[in-house]
């Protein structure tokens, strides 16, 4: 027979005003197994907690129910109080009489009745609570960082500087990410490469960082503190241990007309190439789709068509037969920093919801470009050497129209969210343009100017006041070619008039979207993502860099559109989370996890199929002579997060989720 104590809180007037707390206490006191039932003004106050502790000790209670606010508010408080009185904290539960009762009802009679019912559920449930103890799991104190943009670089450096080993995986042949493509950065207009390159070099030289460039995460197994990550090292066709980055191969490659991805198609590169001169590692890669030798091979041509690069390589580093290889790393934490891509506004989109902007003629009108292309035009290392020139004819544009919110904040054709950085970089573009083409005129079509951030609004004002950019509030309906100018038809909503501008060039500030393939990665990591593909943080305010998969953290634009300062701040935050996790050898976990009844488990493994975490393992039971009796499911305590989907799925109910066992739920339902 249970010895349960019930404690009903008035929460000042909050509960007491609509619920007759004394009657609730009395009514619950009459239930079988309840040996103590009182009400009190403030249960969470010190005297209130003393009341509970005394009752536990004096009445030798084996379970307590606190009828008060939401358990999300004070469950921890009361469980701590119970523990300090010697009662297992998991033998304390709360009935939510405030948020779920007194605050939402007016009729005192009905509210009191409901409060009694809610209390009854918990009293009956707690009769089946078991004492549970905290679970400890070992931690592998190395971290994996996925993505070598500024966020990944920062996270890797911070963790490594904190004294822990880091594996940094980058899918491109060099780290640096989008930041390496930028010309100058807002709001200080310092040169992007100048501040980034030293960080990249630091990564390459850090003794605690193992850089795996041109590599991708293949699979992730395990759980917080104990992940096993399989990484695909894509075939570079160049032996990294031999190459010294002399660049002879590039110079001699006959195929020089390949549009450069780094230059956003505005410049060219060779088939064997490093994407940009400051690349880290400074080791070339052969683009097998463009290389004559590989294309020949793909067509089945027996003859070796080319081989110039190998011929000129003094170190024999070029390896045409290199294959993808795999390495497996054991890590305790994972930082995801996969960054973003721009909304490609042409017609074909990989997502149905994105309809593209046919009216802007991107891809058909050569002088309609996107923001990242403008960065390359403005960049000293870019295809024009930093001169602003039209892609179509190489002339200097005298009038550039910038369109903001292309794809962003446009649920009909693009994405409803704000891409956050465009207002700022368009302002920056107008300034760079003004600096480089003094007689040029910049016109900006905007919806709102969102310049929250230190020095941000001042920056935009400077663009308007000092660089004389003309800001028109409104949208553009169509871009059309008119001879060698682009006719921009728009609407100025402040004057209420349609506007037609003949521009020499148009720059579209297109939306930021998560990287393609993010969903596949999220599934490997069991991290959820929103409808756009951005990874979900555990809590938007209080746990912004954690995910719901313990041990996996988010930095930068993989979580939502982020600018550089944000990304760096997030990266450092993840590093502090990782270092905090690594500060202990053993990890504590709440013990609300599933366990399998060996006697009745049939081994059908429906539980294995539904487990979102892969926490179900197969265990072979044998008799004393080693003969197999059966293969059953077993829950890995470290991996299980306690959702209970396995239990609802198990046909014979041979799985139990501690804290929410069938007997507990049955008892609550029985109390209806």
């Amino acid at each position, binding site marked *: 027979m249970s010895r349960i104590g019930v404690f009903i809180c008035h929460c000042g007037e909050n509960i007491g005003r609509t619920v007759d707390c004394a009657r609730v206490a009395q009514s619950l006191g009459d239930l079988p197994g309840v040996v103590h039932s009182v009400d009190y003004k403030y249960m969470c106050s010190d005297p209130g907690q003393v009341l509970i502790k005394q009752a536990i000790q004096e009445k030798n209670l084996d379970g307590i129910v606190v009828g008060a606010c939401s358990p999300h508010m004070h469950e921890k408080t009361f469980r701590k109080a119970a523990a300090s009185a010697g009662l297992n904290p998991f033998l304390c539960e709360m009935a939510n009489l405030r948020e779920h009762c007194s605050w939402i009802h007016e009729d005192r009679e009905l509210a009191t009745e409901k409060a009694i019912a809610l209390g009854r559920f918990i009293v009956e449930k707690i009769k089946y609570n078991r004492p549970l103890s905290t679970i400890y799991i070992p931690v592998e104190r190395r971290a994996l960082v996925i993505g070598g943009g500024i966020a990944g670089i920062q996270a890797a450096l911070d963790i490594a500087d904190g004294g822990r080993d880091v594996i940094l995986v980058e899918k491109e042949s060099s780290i640096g990410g989008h930041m390496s493509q930028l010309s100058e950065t807002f709001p200080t207009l310092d040169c992007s490469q100048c501040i980034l390159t030293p960080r990249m070099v630091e990564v390459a030289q850090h003794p605690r960082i193992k850089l795996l460039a041109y590599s991708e995460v293949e699979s992730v197994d395990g759980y917080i503190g104990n992940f096993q990550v399989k990484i695909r090292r894509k075939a570079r066709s160049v032996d990294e241990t031999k190459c010294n980055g002399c660049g002879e191969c590039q110079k001699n490659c006959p195929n020089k007309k390949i549009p450069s991805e780094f230059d956003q198609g505005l410049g060219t590169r060779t088939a064997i190439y490093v994407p940009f001169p400051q690349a880290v590692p400074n080791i070339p890669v052969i683009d097998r789709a463009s290389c004559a030798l590989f294309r020949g091979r793909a067509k089945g041509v027996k003859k070796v068509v080319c081989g110039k690069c190998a011929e000129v390589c003094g170190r024999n580093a070029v390896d045409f037969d290199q294959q993808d290889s795999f390495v497996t790393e054991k890590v305790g934490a994972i930082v995801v920093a996969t960054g973003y891509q721009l909304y490609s506004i042409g*017609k074909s989109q990989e997502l149905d919801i994105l*309809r*593209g902007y*046919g*009216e802007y003629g991107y891809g058909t009108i050569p002088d309609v470009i996107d923001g990242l292309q403008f960065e390359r035009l403005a960049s000293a290392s870019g295809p024009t050497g930093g001169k602003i020139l039209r892609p179509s004819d190489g002339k200097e544009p005298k009038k550039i129209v910038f369109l903001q919110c292309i794809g962003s904040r446009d649920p009909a054709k693009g994405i409803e969210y704000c891409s956050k950085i465009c207002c700022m970089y368009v302002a920056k573009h107008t300034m760079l343009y003004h600096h480089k083409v003094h007689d040029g005129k910049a016109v900006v079509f905007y919806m709102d100017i969102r310049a929250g951030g230190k020095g941000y609004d001042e920056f935009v004002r400077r663009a308007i006041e000092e660089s004389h950019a003309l800001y028109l509030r409104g949208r553009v309906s*169509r871009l*059309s*070619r008119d001879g060698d100018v682009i*006719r921009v038809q728009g609407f100025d909503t402040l004057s209420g008039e349609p506007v037609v501008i003949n521009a020499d060039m148009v720059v579209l500030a297109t939306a930021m979207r998560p990287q393609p393939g993010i969903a596949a990665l999220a599934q490997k990591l069991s991290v959820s993502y929103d409808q756009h593909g951005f990874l979900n943080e555990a809590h938007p305010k209080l746990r912004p860099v954690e995910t719901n998969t313990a041990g996996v953290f988010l930095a930068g634009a993989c979580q939502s559109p982020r600018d550089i300062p944000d990304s760096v701040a997030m990266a450092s935050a993840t590093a502090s989370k990782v270092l905090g996790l690594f500060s202990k050898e053993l990890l504590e976990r709440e013990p609300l996890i599933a366990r399998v009844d060996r006697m009745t488990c049939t081994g059908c493994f429906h539980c294995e199929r539904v487990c979102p975490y892969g926490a179900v393992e197969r265990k072979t039971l044998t008799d004393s002579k080693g003969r197999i009796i059966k293969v059953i499911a077993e829950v890995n305590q470290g991996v299980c997060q306690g959702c209970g989907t396995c239990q609802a799925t198990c046909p014979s109910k041979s799985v139990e989720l501690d804290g929410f066992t069938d007997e507990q739920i049955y008892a609550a339902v029985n109390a209806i």
Partner: protein
Amino acid sequence: MNIGYFPGCSLHATAREYAESLTAIAAALDIKLDEIKDWACCGATSAHSTNHMLSVALPARTLMLAEKQNLGRVLAPCAACYNRLASARQAIAKDKEIAGRIQAILGQSFENSVQVLSIAQLLSEMTGEIRDKCKRPLRNLKVACYYGCLLVRPPEICQFDDPESPSSLENIVKAAGATPVQWDMALECCGGGFSLSRTASVVRLSRSILQSARKAGAQAIVVACPMCHSNLDFRQGAINMRDNAPEPMPILFLSQLVGLGLGLDPARLGLSRHFVSPQPVLNFINAVKLQAEDREHA
């Protein structure tokens, strides 16, 4: 192939040539047009600007008749009719309340099962046949394909082609052997129903369309809407008056152009009913034919 046919008022009146040419190419393409018996007004303009329920109920009635007459798909050649019929179909499918009220108004069972097609949709399905049967008299004839506002828009209703840079008419025109030009005004407004009430606006808007087409080198404009046709054709006199009288621009219905491509007798295509004579196009065809004959002789 059998398809239900909703001519609407225009094809029985101001756009009779549209109906004639459509009938002619349908026969050539083995399409049987089953005119919906007892059809009524689609509700365009007047109904949908005054009474929403009426604007749904009118087309719903027609669609119900089509359903009862076992017409699974209905062609509405007029872009406005198409828009009304398709909009009504979607309103009923999406909104249970509207569906209930329409059911009550109709007083008969209605499953809303009839699919509504524009001429662009129908002929897009048939480009293969058109290409096969094309006699290629239009080779190198440069035409501007004009979509207007309702043929591929609003996208929620049409769910066909790219609403901002469509290509279906170009594909059909290519199949018929002509050469579409790239131009900028394919989707701009012609002034639509303001033809009588605000003629000056219509003249201004239609003029810029004609200018753009001319600039792109078009020898004719192809349309798929009686209202567009009327503004560009009937108003061309007024438009050109101010413009130092450039060469008139023939405005052809899509069905007429396809008919010419299929080598049908121009007389059967209603070409004589236009205000702007399509003679330059016919001359072009003849010239092409003569060239071909010459080549044969040589």
